[in-house]
């Protein structure tokens, strides 16, 4: 890496600063909770058989959910990568971004519209003469929902990886007449193998901390995650000590599993490419076309039908009246402002972390301090997902009491909490693109002596603009669908869209809630469209590294 000494220092300082900020934000919340002077009434969580059962179930469902999501995502991503040109391809990719941005309750209801007892699946079965509906409640329902939410995420990240494979490889594969199995074995799998631990880790954390989905689709208390126990400890029992202990248990156990997954071998970085257009001859074979079409159709139905069910129920609502209400306008403005703030903050922190990591990894002889910083950076930036937002929000609420009414800081706190939760996703979108961009441009920029604003203007912004917008839209969609942090502070002046949906549901106004859920999904789709703008055809740019 070609950097001046001061550039290097600044990059490392930026990373350390970001890390300190995150650690301080989480640490302060936990310390305040522990020092609140509220006596814990629960016993030691590690000897409580109920909690051990909960822990076991949490890990079981998270493991299965991750396995299913990741394994099923591989053929989908491969089919998408192999078929770079078909009508609706970009729309399929956009569609896949929508589940992430939906509040889980809405996603769950969409799923039930298809797979529920009154869903079209069961209606078809009843039509075939089955007397009792097939019930998905229980582990099946949880897995189904987790795959619905996470398969598209995994497929998108894998697709981005496959599209980073240099065009020269495909040229070579074509020249050698490699069969699809060899292409998979020698080109696609080595690329995917490097991505899978990271993607699995992310999905594992999302599933391990799942709350609403597990309760709604789990069928009963046999399906309980630690997150439920944490929520209960803070909400009903008001026992911050126990909540913190359970959060630590959640973080440590999951981190141990993630560490074990990270031990899987990761392949070397791919070499430099001339950036020529990708031509995939393997996808043009008739057999491959047929298989890919079938796969993509299935994936589209699996993701699209529940979303269609949200649309259909949503259209039954009086949308015009809903949209005209001041409360709606307020809610959508608040939601978008919070999402924009959170998205920006997440990108800011991600860039600091990514730069520091890339500078440190380029060092030939790493000082132990730097190595530690690199490990802490990658650990923290992914493990933040395991810190329950309710713990952060409660801790900060207590801490901010000293400065007057804590709800005055609610918006800022929600922005920070949402940004933290989006951080791992943003890093995964930006980091690979950043690495490629750096390799492509740093020598030239250094030789031209470009620095500061002129480099930003001429080189970095044009090169990183697309991943920037992709990551921003991703983070904003995530924040838009978040209810967690708002719930504690939620007061009249801070009405967000998911909060409004819940509030309509809470007072019999199911139709209104359906309508708002549809609008929320639409906003997520619009964000995704904005995030993927200008990425129409596959050949209008040499290489794409930014999905």
């Amino acid at each position, binding site marked *: 890496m070609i950097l001046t000494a001061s*550039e290097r220092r600044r*990059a490392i300082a930026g990373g350390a600063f970001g890390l300190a900020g995150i650690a301080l934000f989480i640490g302060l919340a936990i310390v305040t909770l522990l020092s609140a002077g509220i006596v814990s*009434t629960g016993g030691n969580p590690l000897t409580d058989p*109920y909690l051990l*059962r909960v822990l076991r179930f949490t890990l079981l469902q998270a493991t299965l959910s991750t396995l299913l999501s990741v394994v099923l995502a591989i053929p989908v991503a491969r089919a998408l990568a192999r078929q770079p040109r078909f009508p609706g391809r970009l729309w399929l990719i956009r569609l896949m971004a929508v589940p992430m941005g939906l509040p889980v*309750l809405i996603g769950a*209801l969409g799923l039930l*519209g298809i797979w*529920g*007892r*009154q869903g079209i699946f069961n209606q078809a079965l009843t039509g075939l003469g089955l007397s*009792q509906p097939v019930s998905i409640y229980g582990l099946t329902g949880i897995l189904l929902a987790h795959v619905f939410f996470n398969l598209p995420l995994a497929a998108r990240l894998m697709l981005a990886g496959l599209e980073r494979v240099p065009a020269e490889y495909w040229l070579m594969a074509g020249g050698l007449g490699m069969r699809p199995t060899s292409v998979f074995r020698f080109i696609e799998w080595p690329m995917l193998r490097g991505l899978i631990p990271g993607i699995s880790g992310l999905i594992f954390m999302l599933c391990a901390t799942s*709350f*609403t989905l597990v*309760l*709604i*689709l*789990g*069928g*009963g*208390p*046999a399906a*309980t995650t630690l997150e439920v126990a944490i929520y209960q400890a803070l*909400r009903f*029992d*008001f026992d911050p000590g126990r909540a913190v202990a359970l959060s630590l248990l959640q973080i440590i156990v999951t981190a141990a599993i993630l560490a074990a997954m990270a031990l899987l071998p990761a392949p070397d970085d791919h070499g430099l490419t001339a950036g020529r257009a990708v031509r995939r001859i393997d996808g043009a074979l008739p057999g491959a076309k047929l298989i890919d079409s079938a796969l993509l159709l299935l994936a589209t139905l699996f993701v699209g039908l529940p979303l269609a069910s949200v649309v259909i129920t949503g259209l039954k609502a009086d949308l015009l009246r809903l949209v005209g209400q001041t409360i709606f306008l307020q809610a959508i403005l608040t939601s978008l402002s919070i999402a*924009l*703030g959170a998205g*920006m*903050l997440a*990108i*800011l922190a991600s860039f600091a972390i990514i730069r520091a990591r890339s500078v440190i990894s380029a060092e030939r002889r790493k000082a132990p301090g730097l190595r530690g910083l690199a490990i802490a950076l990658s650990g923290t930036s992914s493990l933040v997902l395991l810190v329950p937002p309710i713990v952060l929000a*409660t801790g900060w609420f207590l801490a901010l*009491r000293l400065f007057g*009414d*804590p*709800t*005055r800081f609610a*918006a*800022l706190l929600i*922005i920070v909490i949402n940004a933290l939760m989006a951080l791992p996703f943003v890093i995964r979108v930006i980091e690979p693109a950043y690495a490629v961009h750096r390799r492509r441009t740093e020598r030239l920029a250094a030789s031209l002596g470009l*620095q*500061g*604003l002129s480099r*930003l203007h001429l*080189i*970095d912004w044009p090169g990183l603009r697309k991943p920037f917008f992709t990551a921003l839209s991703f983070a904003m969609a995530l924040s838009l669908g978040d209810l967690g942090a708002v*719930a*504690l502070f*939620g*007061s*009249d*002046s801070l009405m967000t869209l998911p909060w409004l949906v819940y*509030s309509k*549901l*809470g*007072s*019999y*106004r*199911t139709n209104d809630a359906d309508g708002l859920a549809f609008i929320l999904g639409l906003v997520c789709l619009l964000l995704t469209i904005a995030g993927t703008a200008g990425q129409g055809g596959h050949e209008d740019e040499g290489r794409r590294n930014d999905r």
Partner: protein
Amino acid sequence: MPNRSLLSLFAGLVLAAGATLFAAHGAEAADKTLTIYTYESFTADWGPGAKVKAAFEKTCGCTVNYVSVTDGVALLSRLKLEGAGTKADIVLGLDTNLVDEAKDTGLFDASGIDTSGLKVPGDFKDDVFVPYDFGHFAVVYDTQAIKNPPKSMKDLVEGDPSQKIVIEDPRTSTPGLGLLLWVKSVYGDKAADAWTKLKGRILTVTPGWSEAYDLFTKGEAPMVLSYTTSPAYHMITDKTDRYQAAAFSEGHYIQIEVAGLIKSSPNKELARDFLKFMVSPGFQDTIPTNNWMMPAAATSEPLPDAFSKLVVPSKTFLMSPDVVDKNRKAWIDEWLAATSTN
């Protein structure tokens, strides 16, 4: 160093977004205000909040300021978080199961209100908390899906397991806790057995009332744990008799919603005036068709027709708050053990 300028640009945007929200949030009225902490559906556009505020402000020469959180449980958590520094003058929206814990915070003062004129079943008497409305828990069913609704808790527990019910989780919601106490009131020591039997009929256990009721109205299950007053909403707003509450011969458990005044309030006289107003028709008139509960005191007009068609429980169950507080954890554990085995 390019990314530094990029970083400062982002930092600026983040701060700007935050500052906008912060500023919007900081505005407050200047004259004498009565701050009422309550739950969100009370202050929502369609809730009683706005009407109550308008009516009270006419007489008090003050401004009513609501601070709302998700529900009664969140209300209590909020108070515990704020402790003595709370800005509340009145806390409105706890239920009887929470009042013992609420008193333990030491934040509340005696109401000084004569509650003998209130007509709330289940003889709840308290010198701190004043009831403002109530509702009986009930199994609400879809008449298009169920022809023979359960007529008793026993029917529900032992009935056809293919006819499902959605219930709420007692670990996270007050209706869930209500059902737990209801089953306990009917079955006593045999409650665990009853839950083991009922388990087969439970489609799923949701975190709160909203999710359960939505699943029910979407047709996922023909029965849901809700309130005897739920059908009134559908009769009045949706103009349909489709959803009805099942009358249980053993009786129904009651949820009484109460309000109390904060000891450290600088506006105690005003707060007391509000509590008096709360049990007068000016407040009570807003309850039936805005909060969809039964008024705790006289209203100026008779209740709408739909309310005369509602189930009137033959017997009301209500455990005293200290019994609930003492046993809640053990009973939830019992429920967990009975329902989570496979």
